[in-house]
């Protein structure tokens, strides 16, 4: 059995099948490509994959996603530069699928860079309506802008506010908070994106996350929805943050759509208990999805 960093092994009691979890994080993940309807018809995109000798599988819960077995350098193809697809892991496509904004709605992506989810939100809106894509970091906004341009996304305004300080001068139908987090969900024994030195900032992270989520709940219209997501397994940054955000009872946690993989949120951790409705949130484990670890909570503002 390999030795995992303590930032990963501390979640052992949360995992239903530890051996399967450990096995999956030692294997390279499949390449997931999200078809971009702004650039090419689905039939031609599929034909292009075939002509490149690629086979794919489709996942019911993320209908625009194509899982290809082997694709070295997905950012080095003609189709990539033409904006036909965006490389985007399955679980990171779920926030936009769950939030499900319709054409003509107003959407805020509060932590938007590098823009995969922004462009996916726009695609679900068929390019109609307003998307405000916000990120605090100027360099990351440049990456966001480059992806918006490459993918031909027609309806994005980009802003650069701290998430916690986002202005309250406009209300949105939906807000996506894909929060900055310690990122353990991207840990793979080889080739993962996880950095151990970032994981120790858990307490700092959870305060920032709660600040951003509370702001999102203020600027979404009554009846509107907020999707909170992270790529960490840490309950301190997931269930604990959502529990604190719903404390004032002005917000409800909505049940996720049927058929999603993963498991319900947990209602206790290291001596802390969370409200029972936290089980409506969802933990997506790599051994259930063959993708990055992820967490999603869908909230509705009540008044």
């Amino acid at each position, binding site marked *: 059995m390999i030795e995992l960093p303590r930032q990963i092994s501390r979640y052992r009691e949360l995992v239903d099948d530890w051996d399967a979890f450990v096995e999956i994080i030692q294997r390279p993940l499949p390449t997931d490509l999200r078809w971009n309807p702004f650039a090419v018809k689905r039939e031609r995109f599929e034909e292009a994959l075939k002509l490149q000798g690629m086979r794919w599988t489709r996942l019911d819960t993320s209908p625009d996603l194509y899982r290809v077995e082997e694709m070295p350098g997905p950012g*080095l*193809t003609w189709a990539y530069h*033409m904006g036909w697809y965006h490389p985007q892991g399955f679980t990171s496509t779920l926030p936009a699928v769950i939030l499900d904004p319709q054409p003509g709605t107003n959407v805020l992506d509060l932590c938007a860079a590098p823009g995969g989810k922004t462009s996916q939100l726009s695609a679900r809106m068929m390019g*109609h309506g307003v998307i405000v894509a916000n990120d605090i970091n100027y360099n990351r906004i440049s990456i966001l802008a480059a992806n918006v341009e490459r993918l031909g996304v027609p*309806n994005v*305004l980009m802003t650069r506010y701290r998430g916690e300080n986002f202005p309250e001068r*406009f209300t949105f139908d939906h807000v996506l908070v894909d929060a900055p987090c310690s990122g353990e969900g991207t840990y793979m024994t080889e080739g993962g994106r996880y950095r151990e030195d970032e994981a120790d900032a858990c307490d700092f992270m959870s305060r920032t996350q709660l600040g951003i989520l509370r702001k999102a709940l203020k600027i979404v219209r009554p009846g509107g929805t907020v999707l909170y997501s992270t790529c960490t397994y840490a309950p301190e940054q997931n269930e604990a943050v959502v529990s604190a955000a719903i404390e004032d009872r002005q917000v409800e946690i909505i049940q996720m759509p049927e058929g999603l993989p993963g498991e319900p949120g947990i209602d206790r951790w290291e001596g802390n208990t969370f409200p029972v409705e936290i089980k409506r949130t969802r933990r997506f484990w790599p051994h259930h999805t063959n993708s990055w670890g992820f967490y999603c909570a869908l909230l509705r503002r009540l008044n």
Partner: protein
Amino acid sequence: MLSSADSTELKIIRDVLVERFGIPARVMEEWLVFSTGSVLWGLRDAPDLDEALEAFKIERTGLPLLRRVGDNWKPTTVALQVLGKYVSKSLVQLSGEDLDRLLSDAAIRGTITDVDQGYVAVAGPDGVAGCALYLEPQAEEGKEEGLLLSQFPKARWQSFGRYIREDQ
């Protein structure tokens, strides 16, 4: 500094995209146009867009449509891709092989009879892919053939694989 396009800049949009490339005026009416001086940007209009623009300090917006090159305005690759299905003039249709050659060699020789000298939209088998500059033959200077010069952004194209087509 981002600002709404003034009447001169809106006329530039009409002159280039509507007059030269034949994109219907009604299509361009769906876009709000912004200016940063050397670039004109397009953003698809929406009912609450004005209110959103008032509410926030905007860092960037929409898609670049035209870029100033000297005294001329060049359509961007993304503008021609997004609006490509409406382009009806100044359009050069290439085979996949010729498109490969244009991108790898940066230019191809040949005389095109039905377009005027200047910026053209280049289409491959999958529709409009980007922009090129067409120079007409100048027999009196010994240039018997026309020249099509790639205007595709180099950084974006220098490392990709070949065009996806059936003979690969």
